[in-house]
């Protein structure tokens, strides 16, 4: 029988089970992420206010049609009851907390990439919206906020008259 220190044997077993990436590739990925964080934090046309240090969080996808503005963001693993979405004037605020479900004893974190914690983001919408006609939906980790534009904000076509 082989007498091997128990802790050492367990570590080896874990790395036998999974092999995610060679150390060099992991280092490169880490550097890439670092640069991405640094470079993508600035240079946006829309006035963005962020309460977090570093890049804006969570990442937003804002689109508009003629009569509504749609804001989407990916928030996997967040309890929808903890999400707060509010509209003030033409500012939209989203805040909440992503909780780590796994804090129980008897578990070893072998690899950790996901981040947890509180987040808050405010953004100025491209158009005045009707605050009474805003809906928010959280499905499969994607939060979709639909804001109907205010009547005055909808584009009104102006006919061009020519004088001959």
């Amino acid at each position: 029988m082989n007498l091997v220190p128990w802790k050492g044997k367990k570590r080896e077993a874990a790395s036998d089970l999974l092999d995610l990436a060679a150390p060099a590739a992991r280092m490169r990925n880490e550097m890439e992420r670092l640069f991405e964080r640094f470079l993508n934090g600035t240079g946006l046309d829309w006035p963005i206010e962020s309460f977090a240090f570093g890049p804006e969080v969570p990442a937003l996808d804002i689109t508009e049609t003629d009569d509504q503005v749609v804001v989407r963001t990916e928030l996997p693993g967040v309890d929808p009851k903890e999400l707060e979405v509010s509209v003030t004037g033409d500012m939209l605020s989203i805040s909440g907390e992503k909780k780590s479900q796994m804090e129980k004893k008897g578990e070893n974190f072998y690899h950790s990439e996901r981040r947890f914690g509180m987040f808050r983001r405010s953004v100025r919408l491209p158009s005045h919206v009707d605050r009474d006609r805003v809906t928010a939906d959280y499905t499969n980790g994607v939060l979709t906020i639909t804001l109907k534009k205010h009547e005055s904000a909808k584009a009104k076509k102006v006919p061009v008259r020519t004088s001959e």
Partner: protein
Amino acid sequence: MNATETIEKTTARPMKAEPTHSGQVYMPAVDIFERADELTIVADMPGTTGNDINIQFENGLLTVHGRATPRRGVDERCVLCEYGLGDFHRTFEIGELIDSGRITAEYADGVLTLHLPKVPAARPRKIEVRAS
């Protein structure tokens, strides 16, 4: 994990491999942790559905692929687009210490949880100390 730590920008990063279909493919961020009787992989894969996730195990390789649900309507114009939409894909090497026939998975709120039970031989065994 510090509870007040702010979340980083989307941690999914584009894959380097060439995609065989159009569109960006992303590697989902995963947490892996170990219990006495199983290994658990938790992956952030928002915007797909249980039916669009394909998990395959072959030759010791566990491949997870999630097809993204297209979201935007045709008449939507981009105002501020900070993240891309694409499928999720990630591969893991599984050793013989995992009982591959009993791997299970569940998907809720954009999070995929994979349970990889260990074979009985791999579970830690408590050894009793007899005092004389």
